[in-house]
């Protein structure tokens, strides 16, 4: 976990890393992130040259390819502004994975500096900006899946705390929360049988609590779980947790948030 101080006052400008998954499939999560940040009065810059954080190759063991992609990302996100990413997984790649694969490289310092500027969006809102309440309302039961890459980071606490303050929203706990959903990037296609069984167990545990919606700080887990559920004829409504903040955001709630942090 990156141990860093909160911002003394909200930054005027942030760079937004959309992630390749949101770029390809989940534009709604990326849009919601931008809208929440802008709602808080922050200018959001979306570098058009961005591609991917480099994680697929990093996890696949092809560190050479991964470093090439990371170097491109470093260039695209150069500067001093905080980098906000709607994914614990891509965030962890930036502040943990990349420094690991650059251990013996000359640009290690730049990698570390860029990682230190990178925030998973909920961690940014909660720990970075110090927002403790979100005054919107939403009626229903929510299950929160803590993605594995947010283990030991501020994200799980941030998601649960912020969603927990939404009026009418009830958080439900499911069994074996520490167990991985089975996605794991290339793991899901290289170990299809184990991946499916892991996901099926997770879906069972989640559905047991009969939530209206499953949310997470990572679309990748949800893509895998939703895909598995649908294929087996079950329904698993799921979306990025930031969409819930966006959906419950209104002028009065925003002015409250802005006045109180």
């Amino acid at each position, binding site marked *: 976990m990156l141990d860093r101080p909160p911002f003394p006052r909200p930054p005027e400008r942030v760079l937004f890393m959309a992630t390749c998954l949101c770029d390809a499939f989940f534009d709604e999560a990326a849009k919601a992130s931008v809208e929440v940040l802008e709602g808080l009065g922050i200018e959001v810059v979306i570098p058009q040259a961005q591609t991917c954080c480099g994680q697929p190759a990093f996890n696949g063991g*092809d560190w050479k390819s991964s470093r090439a992609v990371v170097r491109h990302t470093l260039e695209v996100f150069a500067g001093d502004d905080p980098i906000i990413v709607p994914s614990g997984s891509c965030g962890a790649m930036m502040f943990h994975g990349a420094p690991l694969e650059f251990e013996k490289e000359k640009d290690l310092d730049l990698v570390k500096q860029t990682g230190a500027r990178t925030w998973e969006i909920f961690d940014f809102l909660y720990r970075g900006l110090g927002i403790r309440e979100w005054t919107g309302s939403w009626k229903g039961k929510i299950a929160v899946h803590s993605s594995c890459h947010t283990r030991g980071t501020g994200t799980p606490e941030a998601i649960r705390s912020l969603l927990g303050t939404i009026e009418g929203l009830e958080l439900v706990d499911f069994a074996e929360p520490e167990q991985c959903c089975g996605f794991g990037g290339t793991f899901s296609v290289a*170990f*299809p*049988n184990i991946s499916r069984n892991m996901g099926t167990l997770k879906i069972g545990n989640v559905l047991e609590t009969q939530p209206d919606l499953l949310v997470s700080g990572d679309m990748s887990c949800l893509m895998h779980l939703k895909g598995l559920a649908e294929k087996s004829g079950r329904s698993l409504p799921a979306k990025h947790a930031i969409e819930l903040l966006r959906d419950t955001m209104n002028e009065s709630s925003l002015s409250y948030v802005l006045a109180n942090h």
Partner: protein
Amino acid sequence: MSSQIIDQFAADLDGEVRTSVRSGSAAGTDKRHKVLFEDFPEADRMRELAGKVKQHTLDHLDKYLEQAEAALKANGAKVHFAWDAKAACDEVEAILRQSNAKTVTKSKSMVSEEVGLNDSLAERGFDVVETDLGEFILQLDGDHPSHVVKPIIHKNRSEIARTFEKHGLGEYNDEPETITRRARQFMRKKYLQAEATITGANFVSAESGRMCVVTNEGNSRFGLAGSRVHIALVGIEKIVPRDIDLSLLLNLLGRSATGQALTVYTEFIAGPKAEGAVSGPEEFHVVFVNNRRTEVLASNCREILRCIRCGACMNVCPVYRQASGHAYRSVYPGPLGAVLSPLLAGAEGFPELADLPKASSLCGACNEVCPVDIPIPDLLLKLRDRGKQEHNAQAAADTPPMGAWAWVAQSPALWRASLKSANMLNLLPYEKIPFGPLGRWTRDRTLPAWRGGKFRSWAKNRKKAAK
């Protein structure tokens, strides 16, 4: 369809075995969590401290090994060093022959499994009996442990009852009490008959030369009580600097392994029988086993040698729970084994096990529970990189090659064009593609609609509208 060995192993696994492994390991995880955090609300800080103590020891292993040797000798122990597996077996054989020992009782020890001690001694004509109940059952079956703490986690009691019946230990009866009583009757004779006993060691204090052995059945204690000669086989990484370090490590070991505050028996063995003592071995031999540990120490995965063999990582690992310990094709299973086994196999053995580091979703649960805070996922990743660099076919199986992807990902224009053109995927009946990553994905899952470029044009249009 799958060609990764562990995935296939899991797919073929007998349903009964799968259930035993999953429920056994899940129960272990639950107990650990409950007991550890009830007793120590800041357990995570203890884990970090313990990791530092072990890492410090490894960083100065030469010094502590010398200290331990001197302290052990001062206590009256004879100290031997074994460079590899064969040397370890040879040392043990030489000690046994010297003391005319034929029958040997043995406590469960992973390092003895690692060097293949049982087979080696059996070939050389010794009668060696495993005295840990689980390990004894495996010995009867000609099987191997599938967990470092619960060696027969993959067996249920009806299988055990069948084993006992088959080996003449009474008619079929699957009551745990009966099974235990029968094993005890059998072993009692061996304890009285044995001239020598072999144990492992959980820790050796360099300060005092005190060796610590933990068991839940007291079998190591029984072995020591009846034998003239005690041989301890100890991996060189088992050393800790001081006696006081044991307070930290023992508190973590029992809780992490079985959810016990302390194992039922925790023995401290300083040397051979003291003058005037009623029982205990007259000779105490410690065989320090290297077997490529110094090689691991010199590698970029040296942290794995902090391991105190508690098994918490395998208990919590979703892959282990699905696949069982035997899927790892080596002495050490689970996340620990996925790192340690390919390393202990050396350069020539690495290719054979290079797929093990891939058998993880890198979920990090193993790191979270590790009592000595080993960054297992990082080590798995480093070994994946090594596999790729060495062009290992085993490691690469079913992982899509990344070269072309990386090339596109460095060219923003190409990247955006690919994202947009992939929208055509939505028109394809790709769920029917039987091959490749897409095929393997859609066999069990639907793929969401491809929406490449939608976010970017939304962002662009807003900008225009704002102007």
